[in-house]
């Protein structure tokens, strides 16, 4: 307990750093994956190739990647940018496939009718395709979020600040409480991030949060029949 109190400042500070370092790959990966996923869905021919290449990225083991990136990027060994770039690559690897599925999930009739009433391609993307791909995109970014937050701990092995530090340090000192702090902290960040994402989803996609109740639909149908009779 006294260890907790004595190190509270450091625990909070490292937790915040962990949250920040994982937020960057989640957001950047999402933004990069969307146009790639859109293209993969739009151009069926390229789809297989794009998804295969992106899928291979995910197969690169994380530790060698962390270690190799400094020489590839010209960064210093301990630069957190290495880990952030590596995690962004994983985020893209997961997110591109989901984004492609998300755009494929948009009903073709809705797209056709949007075109028919005069949406330009650009406008249709922003006001029809992207919002309607939203629910599947959201499920994808939630997976990315959890995986990024937990993978970031591995960065501590190469000396980048993250909650993984407590984990490693606790192991070396055979100090269970410190290990638990590392684990619980990671879980807390993951849960809060997931809650924030689903809250954002509900605010941004109100049509989705309220699927029509069976009763409402039946009542509406009954009313039309009565009107028609």
């Amino acid at each position, binding site marked *: 307990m006294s260890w907790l109190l004595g190190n509270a400042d450091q625990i909070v500070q490292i937790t915040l750093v962990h949250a920040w370092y994982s937020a960057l790959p989640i957001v950047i990966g999402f933004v990069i994956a969307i146009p790639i996923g859109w293209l993969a869905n739009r151009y069926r021919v390229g789809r297989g190739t794009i998804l295969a290449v992106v899928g291979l990225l995910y197969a690169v083991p994380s530790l060698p990647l962390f270690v190799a990136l400094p020489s590839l990027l010209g960064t210093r060994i301990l630069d957190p940018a290495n880990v952030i770039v590596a995690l962004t690559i994983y985020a893209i690897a997961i997110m591109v496939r989901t984004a492609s599925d998300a755009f494929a999930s948009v009903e073709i009739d809705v797209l056709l009718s949007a075109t*028919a*009433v005069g949406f330009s391609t650009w406008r249709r993307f922003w006001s029809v395709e992207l919002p*309607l791909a939203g629910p599947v995109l959201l499920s994808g970014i939630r997976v990315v979020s959890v995986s990024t937050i937990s993978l970031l701990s591995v960065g501590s092995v190469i000396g980048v600040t993250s909650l993984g530090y407590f984990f490693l340090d606790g192991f070396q000192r055979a100090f269970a409480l410190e290990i638990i702090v590392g684990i619980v902290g990671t879980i807390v960040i993951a849960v809060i991030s997931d809650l924030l994402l689903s809250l954002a989803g509900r605010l941004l996609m109100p049509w989705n949060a309220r699927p029509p109740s069976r009763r409402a639909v039946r009542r509406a149908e009954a009313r039309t029949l009565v009107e028609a009779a």
Partner: protein
Amino acid sequence: MIEFRSVTKRFPDGTVAVRDFSLVIPSRRITVLVGSSGSGKTTILRMINRMVDPTSGTIEIDGDDIAGIEPVGLRRGIGYVMQNAGLLPHRRVADNIATVPVLRGVRRKDARARALELMDTVGLDRSLAERYPSQLSGGQQQRVGVARGLAVDPNILLMDEPFGAVDPLVRAELQRELLRLQRDLDKTVVFVTHDIDEALLLGDQIVIFTTGGIVAQAGTPQEILAAPADEFVARFVGADRGKRALHVREQNGRPVVVDSEGRAAGVLVPDDAGLGARAGDGSPADGSAPGGRPEPARDGGAR
């Protein structure tokens, strides 16, 4: 007036959906394209707003070749209603109706105010304005689709099997409403259906297709029923059977019209009684005989 001149559409995969098609679609009338599935109706309809461009031939609207008109702008000036309404599921009813005016730069607030008026026009309760399409019945969604099609007060309204997915009772109601609307609004309507009853009910001019966008016959409902061009058309319109094969029987010295099953369908009255024009209506029990509607312009008829 919309004019097709020797229009052919061959898709990249080699399918010839429309072959050497020519037709004059007169203004302010309902022209119905009818034929079985795959006969090229949708392709023809989509060529009018350049969703599909012809492989050869030209299409003119009021004398202008539409190949020279920028597609997005062209589409914003033409109403389009499709099966399952094609509404934007993430927009509320009022916003769906306001879609095209907003695309054309009308302020959202003004467009929504106008959307409420259009809801009255198509017989939708204004209380539905804030619902999402999934919270409406099929018939209500279809009305929203029609309201959206009318939102920019277009001269031309394209309707692709708009009532195909609703149950028969609601369909009959929507058909009557369309005829009522058309009496007030006088649009140039191009209506696609595979239902010959619907075609005969709604069409001032009917174009019957075999496959591949080949016209089997074009004309008014009366012309087609009176003189089917061939065996195919006769069978398609059912002129030889059921409720459309009517004949006269004497009953106590008075003529009664009966169908092929011998069921009484009505009586014959003199032509000046006001019912004359739509002898081919086929639904004498339906109280909406559109007796007041003008005949299609003779010179604008099908080729």
